[in-house]
């Protein structure tokens, strides 16, 4: 696993890019993009586009013919009482990298970000992370116990929990190991594997604050232990300030009850924080006066730095972004206009700005934010460009409302070394070749 392709210097390519862009005045930026930097490779690009057209040539379903599906009836209502995507979309699925883990029961899968539109992740595509597999829980027999340093220890049924006033909030969910395979070098040949431990849903449930008020937290209560009903009895210590701020106890996602993979019938949800703190299959909340230092906040989910010391309780998922088109799964197939798209997110609040670079971070242009721009949610951005086969080193750089600017890989490695595993949120680079193929590279 440790074969690293040694640096193939980009100085020449970048020098060319820089030379071309120096000829442009600052307000010529759009023109620079429109012209592209060089015409090299335009022929190759044209042939890719031509190939796509040739593929469907000879089909009798194309105009002027009446296609086969327009000359017959389709299936009726409730043929599929719970619908599923078109069979032509069978490639749009979660995937795993088997060698990362010993067993699929304690493992992770990734969301196919390249295939998704907007900011909502469909429930069947939300990435999975299990420590002991998915328990099959009968909601009628599920209970949440809230105890410890409280005035009134309480036990809730699902019915009880759904009687509380509810809220619905669109928030991202991200594993802190997202991108973690890339600390030492570029390893993953697809967006799904570089950034796919990331999803965004509308979550519905009760603010934890409401439950805590119901039980009455004693003054010495400072931390909360959240525990799951899975075989791992997955547990994390959560500071009371977070619980009183925006933590939710969630029973629905994107309009329907939680999927088993997401904690059915009940999960904790800590907006903006590393996913493992959002304990799934939630069965117990205990208020205490100090953290518990359980396995998932000592042995795992602590960030080892080059000094040999490790950061603990590193909860926040810092500002991050990635270009989702083009990407390895979605190469550039046409010369001419291209809308470069991506996702940005911050665990500290709203995304304020995203910039895009075509030359590996030497020069940048502002992107526009599209659709909803919500705190601690995925935010979609795009940039209009022209591509005529010129090589690109595409990067996105996000800035959140606190002013935090997403760091470069070099800055992150300088601060932490390369054994942190978690919280790698550095600027990511896609290399777009003259034939439109996109590969994962690292620029330092």
């Amino acid at each position: 696993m440790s074969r690293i392709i040694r640096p193939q210097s980009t100085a020449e390519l970048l020098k060319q890019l820089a030379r071309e862009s120096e000829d442009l005045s600052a307000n010529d930026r759009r023109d620079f993009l429109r012209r592209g930097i060089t015409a090299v490779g335009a022929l190759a690009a044209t042939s890719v586009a031509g190939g796509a057209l040739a593929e469907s040539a000879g089909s009798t379903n194309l105009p002027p013919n009446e296609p086969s599906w327009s000359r017959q009836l389709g299936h009726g209502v409730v043929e599929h009482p719970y619908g599923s995507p078109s069979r032509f979309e069978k490639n749009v699925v979660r995937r795993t990298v088997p060698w990362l883990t010993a067993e699929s029961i304690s493992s992770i899968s990734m969301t196919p970000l390249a295939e998704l539109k907007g900011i909502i992740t469909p429930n069947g595509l939300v990435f999975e992370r299990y420590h002991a597999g998915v328990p099959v829980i009968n909601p009628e027999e599920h209970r949440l116990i809230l105890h410890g340093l409280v005035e009134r220890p309480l036990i809730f049924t699902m019915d009880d929990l759904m009687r509380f006033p509810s809220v619905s909030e669109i928030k991202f969910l991200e594993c802190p190991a997202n991108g973690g395979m890339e600390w030492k070098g570029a390893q993953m040949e697809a967006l799904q594997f570089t950034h796919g431990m990331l999803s965004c849903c509308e979550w519905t449930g009760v603010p934890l604050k409401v439950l805590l008020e119901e039980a009455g937290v004693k003054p010495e209560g400072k931390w909360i232990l959240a525990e799951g009903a899975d075989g791992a009895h997955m547990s994390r210590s959560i500071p009371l300030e977070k619980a009183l701020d925006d933590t939710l106890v969630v029973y629905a996602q994107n309009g329907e009850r939680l999927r088993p993979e997401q904690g059915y019938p009940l999960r904790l949800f800590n907006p903006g924080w590393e996913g493992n703190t959002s304990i799934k299959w939630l069965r117990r909340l205990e208020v205490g006066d100090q953290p518990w230092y359980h396995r998932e906040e000592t042995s795992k989910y602590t960030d080892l730095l080059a000094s040999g010391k490790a950061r603990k309780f590193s909860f926040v998922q810092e500002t991050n972004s990635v270009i989702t088109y083009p990407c390895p799964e979605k190469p550039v197939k046409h010369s001419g206009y291209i809308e470069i798209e991506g996702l940005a997110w911050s665990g500290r609040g709203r995304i304020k700005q995203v910039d895009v670079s075509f030359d590996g971070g030497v020069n940048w242009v502002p992107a526009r934010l599209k659709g909803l721009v919500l705190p601690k949610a995925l935010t979609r951005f795009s940039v209009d460009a022209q591509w005529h086969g010129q090589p690109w080193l595409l990067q996105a750089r996000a800035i959140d409302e606190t002013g935090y600017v997403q760091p470069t890989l070099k800055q992150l490695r300088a601060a932490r070394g390369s054994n942190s595993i978690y919280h790698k949120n550095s600027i990511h680079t896609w290399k777009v070749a003259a034939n439109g193929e996109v590969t994962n590279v690292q620029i330092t």
Partner: protein
Amino acid sequence: MFRLPDHSWRPLIAGLLLTTGVQALAEPLGIGQAASADEIAGWDIDVRPDGLGLPPGEGSVMDGEMLYESRCASCHGTFGEGVGRWPVLSGGFDTLTHERPTKTVGSYWPYASTLWDYIHRAMPFTAPRSLSADETYAISAYVLYLNDIVDDEFVLTQDNLASIEMPNQDGFFLDDRPDSPNMRCMKDCANPEQLEMVGTIGGITPVGHFKQGADAPAASHEAQKALEEQKERERLHSLGIEVEAPHERADSELSASALAGREVYEAACVACHGSGLAGAPKLGDQADWSPRLAKGMDTLLKHAIEGFTGTKGVMPPKGGRVDLSDEQIMHAVAFMTEKSR
């Protein structure tokens, strides 16, 4: 249509709303039941570094060694070295600054309580919450011994656990991010001459779904194992040793008992017998199963129920799932053997 006759009704209407159900929040809503001490006690399993939550009990390194061999070694290795990709438990001292650190109980974990808590809540992997308090003390003691933290005479108890000093207990500090400041720069932000590009390692990402002819690894854990086994058969073939590829029998060929055993297999046996982990005979692998079958079904069942240590590995009693009945085990054994004939 209902109409208010005049404004004088309004205060009355407002008063009615209050008495008919508008709830002033921040008051308790009275939802949920009081949790009884019994209900809490059954689930309140957490343990803290100061020992809070530890039940009475004790366990010695010696007792722990036997338990560890039967419950833990098949994944974590006899000396805590880890089998395959399962976690390494011991050693790795002074490697935290190395290029490839080995983070173990001894080299990394800050508190002994974490070990006790985790074993008690989640281990053995295939049978969580099956260990008694004393067994947990004993196994914890043995893992501490494997890391040279206690000696071989040591007995771990409710009273002494919190006083154990772990080598890396001062190795952690509170989150102090942001730690890697960047600035928003729009033009000439880097010197292209000094930038270096590193390409992706080829062939270790499952990209077969979009890259034709890619030298891609398997896309699932099952396929990955099948691939590794196929390579092993090819290696043996080159040495002149022929091994039959595993092939499971169809369900239509199974007895009622075997079919009844599928559910137990999937809940309790698959983690080891699905993968051949640590010498477990793998489902559908005739070469693996035939010497076991030759001993006769009675012996096989006895080993499954009572546990067995063979030359290839360890079968814990009922695979660690002592909550299962003998009958359930019998069905699971029927399922595995019939699938693998």
